[in-house]
Every structure is written in structure tokens, then in C-alpha cells.
């Protein structure tokens, strides 16, 4: 069955809480009939596809806790905090404020009109956003509200557990000594979802040995994933051609993308492997 026609928005009520607690209580009250909304750029596309708009939209526009950016100390390490409502465009435009890997990820998402409205929090919350592999590769931490408490937790735990908590901010280490890469493949140059996105970071010593390797992969129909096996393989080694070939095979084994109507899993694996290996070769040799 194919649903047709436009979806009426006339029955939807937009609620505008002014605190995290209020926002959470509204969601508790209306349950499945309500949804948090920030930029709304992704949700709009769902409505255009004929999915019903929720009866209640809980706007996070007036919630101060999710706004702004700043510096935080976490376990003695300096982090940049990005409020969940920071737009992708703000991130893209402020190269001096944010880590270049984040700026690169923001630059590659959607199109200007979307980036003006879309937020970091929304990109993370949808579960498939292209900021996610960047944040995974950077060992970010995330601050969330679960209705009772404000928590700080590793970003990859948040992603792995499909957490339903309300995102307040994401904290990114300020360490800029790590080498990094971020690459995204789409069916055209811009304004289209990712087929495969890869991101990676590592330290490189004078002996050209890698350490603190982080590798992450995703795609618009593929769950974001850390490549732990591959990270272990590279840890402490100086890449040779043979080892990179081994890395290639390990990526193909470890990465588990889905086949969708436009690309097969085999293709996504090949691209991810080609990219990660070529980038490691470029940055570490």
C-alpha cells in the first residue's frame, strides 16, 4: 500500500518548555504522541513521506541548558562543550572555536538551508547523523538528562545503547595533536544522505607508530560503528603494505553495513576499507 497526498499539520500542538524538567515532564505526559523537536529538518522529511506528524511537538528552543558552547574540564582534560542546539552551520562557520574534524563533518552535511536549522543534538538523536562517526572517532563525551539527573557518559556508550535521554551537550577533547580524517560518500556531491562515512584519529610518534587509534564508520541506513578490531590491529604498529592489506580485510569483516535499494553492503565495505586504509597510509607513512 502506498499512502498518498499531503499530511495535515492542523492538529499538531507545539509546546515550548523553558527548562529541561518541563521538557521531560511534557514528554512523560504525552508519551508516544509527543516528540522533542529542535531544527526539525529531518522530521519534516518524514512528514513529507506521509508519516504522521506527532500530536505534540516539544520545542527545545527556549531551553537554556542546551544552548551555547564553552570550555569544560573532564578528568583534568580540556574539552570544548557544544550545546545540543548549536546549528551545523554555526559549527561549520567557526573554525577557530571547534576541532577541524567537527567542522569538516558539519561542512559535509545536507545543504545550507538545512544546516542553518539543523542542530548537533538532532544529528546525534536521529541515530544515523554524520556527526556521529566524527564524535566517535574523537572520543567525545555526552551530557544527557534522564528525567532525574544530568549524566556525563562516553559518547560511544550513548550510541551503542540507543539511549532515549535528552541530549544537553556534547564535549569534544581539545587535543589537536592527533592525526585525523573524515570522508563521506554520497550519490551526488551535496544535499543527499551518506552511503558510507568514515572517520578516524590516532597519535603518531617519531617511529611512525600509531597509538590511541579510533576508527568509526556509518551511513544513512547503517548503524554507526566503532571498528575495535581494526583499532587493535593498528595500535603500536608502524603500517607496512602487508599490514594495511590485513587492515583492509579486517574492515571488510568487522564493518556490518546494510544493503539498501541503492547500494549493497559489499560495496559499502569496499569503500570503507579503501578509505580507511588509504587515509592511514597517507597520514602515517
Amino acid at each position: 500500500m502506498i499512502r498518498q497526498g499531503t499530511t495535515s499539520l492542523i492538529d499538531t500542538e507545539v509546546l515550548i518548555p523553558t527548562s529541561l524538567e518541563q521538557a521531560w515532564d511534557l514528554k512523560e505526559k504525552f508519551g508516544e504522541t509527543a516528540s522533542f523537536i529542535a531544527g526539525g529538518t529531518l522530521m519534516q522529511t518524514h512528514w513529507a513521506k506521509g508519516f504522521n506528524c506527532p500530536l505534540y511537538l516539544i520545542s527545545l528552543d527556549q531551553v537554556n541548558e542546551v544552548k551555547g558552547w564553552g570550555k569544560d574540564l573532564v578528568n583534568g582534560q580540556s574539552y570544548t562543550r557544544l550545546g545540543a542546539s548549536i546549528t551545523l552551520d554555526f559549527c561549520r562557520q567557526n573554525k577557530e572555536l571547534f576541532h577541524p574534524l567537527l567542522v569538516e563533518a558539519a561542512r559535509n552535511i545536507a545543504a545550507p538551508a538545512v544546516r542553518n536549522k539543523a542542530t548537533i543534538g538532532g544529528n546525534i538523536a536521529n541515530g544515523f547523523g554524520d556527526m556521529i562517526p566524527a564524535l566517535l572517532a574523537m572520543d567525545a563525551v555526552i551530557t544527557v538528562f534522564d528525567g532525574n539527573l544530568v549524566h556525563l557518559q562516553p559518547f560511544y556508550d550513548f550510541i551503542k545503547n540507543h539511549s532515549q535521554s535528552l541530549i544537553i551537550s556534547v564535549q569534544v577533547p581539545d587535543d589537536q595533536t592527533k592525526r585525523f580524517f573524515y570522508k563521506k560518500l554520497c550519490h551526488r556531491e551535496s544535499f543527499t544522505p551518506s552511503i558510507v562515512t568514515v572517520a578516524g584519529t590516532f597519535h603518531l610518534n617519531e617511529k611512525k607508530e600509531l597509538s590511541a587509534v579510533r576508527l568509526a564508520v556509518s551511513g544513512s541506513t547503517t548503524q554507526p560503528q566503532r571498528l575495535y578490531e581494526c583499532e587493535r590491529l593498528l595500535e603500536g604498529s608502524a603500517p607496512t603494505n602487508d599490514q594495511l592489506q590485513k587492515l583492509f580485510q579486517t574492515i571488510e569483516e568487522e564493518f556490518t553495513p546494510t544493503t539498501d535499494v541503492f547500494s549493497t553492503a559489499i560495496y559499502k565495505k569496499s569503500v570503507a576499507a579503501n578509505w580507511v586504509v588509504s587515509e592511514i597510509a597517507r597520514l602515517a607513512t
Partner: protein
Amino acid sequence: MAIQISLFNKKKKIRPDGLGKVTGALKYLTDLSFPGMLYGKILRSTEPHAEIQSISVDQAKQLPGVRAIVTYKDVPGLNGFGLIFPDQPVLCEDRVRYVGDAIAAVAADTIEIADAALQLIKVEYKKLPVIVDPEEALHPNAPRLHPDGNLLHRAYYSKGDVEEGFQSCSHIVEEIYELPRQMHAYMETEGGVIVPEVDGKLTVYVGTQHGFKDRYQLSRILNMNETDIRIVSSPMGGSFGGKDELNIQPYGALLALATNCPVKIHQTRRESVRAGLKRHPMKITMKTGVDDSGKILSHKVKILADTGAYATLGPAVLDFSVEHAPGPYVIPNIEIEGLSVFTNNGVAGEFRGFGGNQVTFALEGQIDRLAEKLKMDPLEFREKNLRQVDSPGPLGQKIAPTSGARDVLEAIKEKLHENTNNSHLSDQWKVTGTGVAISIHGGGLGVGRIDPAGGRLSFTKEGKIEAAFGFEECGQGLLAVIETLVMEEFKCKEDDIRIVVGDTDSVPISGSSTASRATSMVWNSIQRMKETFRDEILERASRVTDLPVNELTMGPNGIWLTDESLCISYVELAEKTLNKPLLKVETSFNFPVSPDAVVDGSHFLYAFSSVLARVEVDLLTGKVKVLDLEQAIAAGPVVSLLGYQGQIEGGGIMALGYSLMEEAKMENGAYVNDNFDTYLIPTIQDVPFVMNVEAIEKLQEGDIYGPRGVGEIGTIAVAPAIVKAIHDATGCWVNKLPVSREFLLEQMATRGEKRWV
């Protein structure tokens, strides 16, 4: 970016409708509103193939705000439409054949109510087997989609003996080429307002490419006199062939008559995708052989077109493909068979290029593969087999003599020399390559088809030179063409001219705005009318001013003396001749056709193109980026410089999309990509930075036919040039569009492991 004109430079005139369009001030027909206007929605089938067992509208009718619901029972005349024959039901009674089939239409106070009413209409279906593959459809045991079976049309041509020809060949290439279903992707989806008038007549404000044809088709459906229907059909936000056939007009008209209120229907993009026409997917098998010297001896072609559920212009598109299968080459032994087959897929019909794109992709693919086998330069190989000025047309018919084929080949050869030195790359995982392809493309509807042309020039009471044509402005720049030609002919200013198009109540019959014919026919009409018009206006001026007629000439603002002083303005002349009968000159004639063509639809006037594509292929992803796209076009004199450039560049970009990303996929009769989030057309980021257009304006001595249209030619040879460039870069031949990165990556991977460091 730049356009090179070989003969003379023309002023870059801004098109008259340009400002309104770029500022958004211009009102399209879908922007119109009328007092008391209702909104219409169309219920389309959820099944690609089924019997309708019942339709119940009772519940929907109860919904407050619903004003009318129409089904097949409410069609007063013929329940069918179609440009060639009316096999598509306006509203289905007992069977649906694709997911765009209409079953009911609703008029309501708001779009939301109309939409809600659609959900309340109950249709019971009995599913039937779905035919998605044309080969399957031709199987003797396949369910019959239409009374005469599943073969819509067969077109055949042969000369010489192909099998004997192959015996003498030293190299033979046989390949199967597969071409996708492409969307027109016009910015303005189908829509408009249909208004019942107090005198019982009907005004249809809906874009189309041929107002009079819509009027004719609607009169059959509504059982009304044609003269009681007025079609206002311009401007349109794009068509590319997709709005030539009726779309929402019948439903708006039925609802307007049922409610006696104006009814607006404007399809959403998803509705447009589902119901609208597409470019024919084709599977083309070609076997082509050459002798040692590189002469093509034999060419055997089989074309299988998936025309979807209904005919529309399917037969004509197939005829065009068959006609263009030999291209601009002289081949002694030819056999071409085309089959256009009904399936339960989306309806395929008219689309810029009209079957030429598909067959040229295959033909030029053959040419490049043969050149490789012969170890011959592909351009030299083409040159060796190219038609001469007086060669017959592709199907042996007499055509207007032209050196176009050779001219475009020469032009692209020069571009190739200029383009070879800039392929240095810093990225070790990227390779570049260059490819060239050429094409021939017929203009007009072709022999054996009703193809009238004509126009009217008048001198109005307000002192304007009025140029009226039955053509439509669909974004192609028609108004600029008319304005430029009238200004050039009568040396007048923009302000002196009034252009009338797109209204069946006030335009003459000019035929359709299709088949690259409008510019050509405007020019020809003006040639036929200009002397009479000029003589009459000067005669009137002479009488009013008492000056000798041979000392008068037309010019800016009015009539001038040959000593270069304005003697009477157009406004003054109109005022002083108010009591005289209106000065009006009309012409009507037919589009020129070949005197001896034996195959229906074959052409007499042709345009030619050559394309140079340079691409970069990413060895890690298989991604192809077009770096340069240059075209040389031989289509006679340029009329409107920016319009010409826009057509070729725009056509090139549309074909780039066709080559690399566009495919309206269907699964079991349903569209997979139903909106522009998954059906991708190129954005500015996908468009090459360099896109030169060279216009070769030369015509043979004595050629009286003037400019040929360029609406389609810019789309034809792009895909084969891109695919050859990919081959040049990677060594991989591609037979299927859009080019699959996955396929390329697999092909490249077969060449051994990479050295990473």
C-alpha cells in the same frame, strides 16, 4: 560558461520574462486563485495491476467540506485520453494497470479535506499478476494488459543484407545496452485552475505543450464543443516533454463542471512522480561490424522499450529510436527492429531527446568499442564513416543537405587538442580520462504526421506590433526568440512589440511546442509574413504622412524616413488609422518533410552535436566526476544567444544526471524513489566548471529553412562521451546507465591488489 559563435557575435539579450522569473514575481498558472475556488485531489490506484471490484464514495461524500466526488460514472464523453490513441482511462472502471491510474477525484474546500476524503474512498481490488519486465510481457502466456496484447508498437527498417555484411567483417562488436527510466524533474509540478464560465464555457489554466491538443482531448472527454473550451497554458515552470500529454486537466474539468466552481489541482512531488510520464527504459542490442580499413559494413539493432501501462507517445518515441539507430554514419547493410511493450510500470512517453538519447548511447558505444578493436583513433574512425553533405538521411530518405556532422566532428577535434594538457592530478587514487561522442537529431514530428505551423502579425489599436503564436513558454525561452526575431526583422524596440502565446482563444495554430520545432517555425512564419506586414504598415504610414512609401522604413518607436528621422510613431500611426481595418497578416504551413521518406516519422531537417567530456574517476569509490563538458552544435543560425547557450548547457546537465545518477527505480510496479530526496538530479556542485558551447551557424548555400531548434540536441551525445571518458580513465566499458560506481569499483578491483604505501 562561454559560448563561441563562429560567424558573428550577437547581443546577449536578457529574456523578456527573465526578471519576473528570477525574482519570483511572475505568477505561474499554479499560483492563480479565483473567488470560491475549491481544491481537487485525485485518488490513484494502490495496485500496479488489479481488477476493481467496487468503488464506494459514500463515506467520503459525508465529510464536511467535500463538494463533489467524481468516478468513471461521471465522465460525460470518452473515458480515455492519449496523444496518439486514447487508451488511458480518465477514471478507471474495472481495472487498473499502474499505480498512477486514477479512480476518483474529489473537490473540497481545502486541500486537507480533499486529502482526508481520499482516505475515505473505499476501493476493493482483486490483484492480478504484475508484469514488470518487457520480455516477460511478450511471452505468449503473459496476461494481456490491453485487448490487442502487450505489444504497443513494432518499428522495422532494413537495407542490404546484414548477415551477408557480417561475413565480410574483420571485427564485430555485439553488446547489450541498458538505459534507465528518467524523470523530467520540472520545478513546477503539474497543476492549475479550471474555471467554469457563466456562459457555460470552460477555461483551463493549466500548462501544456500544445493548447489546441489539450482542447481537443478535453472536448472528447467532456462531450463539449472545442470552441467552448479555452486553454490558457503559459507560462510553465518546465516541461521537457512531460506535460505534453494531459495530466490533471480532465479531473479539474470534471470537478469544476460538477461543482460549478473553479477547481485548483496542483500535484505534490510524490503525486507527480507516481502519475507522471518518464523517459522510456530501453534495452538495446547492437551488432556492428567493420572491415580491416575501418569501414562499417553491417549494423543490426534490436530495441526493446518499456512503455509502461499506456501508449501516449510511445509509438513515436520508438520510431525515433529506430530512425536514429544508424546515427550520422553511412552503413550499407542495416537491420533495425524496435518493440515498444506494455508493462505495469510507470507510463513512459515524451521526453527531451525522444528516444534519441537511448539509441545514441548504444551506437556511440559501438563506435568506440570498434575503434578500440581496430586500434584506430575514435575520431578518425568516425570521420571515415561519416555522412557527406548530400548523403541521404539515416533511413535512406532525402534530407536537407548539411555538413553538420563533419562540422561538429572538426570542432570537437580542435577542442580535444586544447583539452589534453591539463590532466595533472595530485591524488594518487584518482585518474582522469577524456571521451568524445557525436549525434544527429531530427526536428519536427516527421513524415506522415500532422505537423502544422503558423503565426500571426498584427498592428494593434495601441500601436504595438503584435506577434501571436500557438507555442508555449515552458522555460525554454520562447518569448526571447519571438522578441529577437521581430526586433531584427522590423528594427523596432522591445516596447514596440506585444507577444501573445499560450491562449487558445487568441493565438493561431502553430502546432506543438515539441520536437525542437518552435524556434524554427517562428523564424519560418516571420519570413513568410514580414514583407506583407512591412508593406502594409509602410503603406498606411505613407497615407497618413503624405510621404512617399519608398522613403519610409520601420524602426525603433515608429516609421522612419530614409534620411534617418522619425516621421511617425507607431502609437500615432495607430491613432490616425483607427477607422481602418486591423492590419493583420497570418500564415499557416506545414513543417518541412522529406519528399521520399518511406518510414513514418522520419525527418528532413537535422541538427548535430559533438561532446567532449573529461572525467575524474575515484579508484577508491568508483565515483565519477565530470570535470569538463564541452559541446559543439550545428543547428543553423543562433536566434537568442543566451537561450541557445541555456538549452545546450541545461541539456548537458540533464544528460549528466541521466549518465551518473538518475534512475526512477520500480519494484513490483511501485516507484522506489518517490521524491527528490532519493531521486537525485545534479546540483551546481555536480556540474563541471567548464562547459563551453560552440555554435556552428553554417547552413548550406540555398538552405531556406533557417535556424533548427536546439531544445533537445544538447542532451543526446553526453552520456556516450562520459562513458568513453570513464573508459579512457580506467579501461572499463560501461553498458548500463546510470553508471554504477559499484560496477566500476568491482571492475577496477579485478586488476590486482593496491600498493597502499
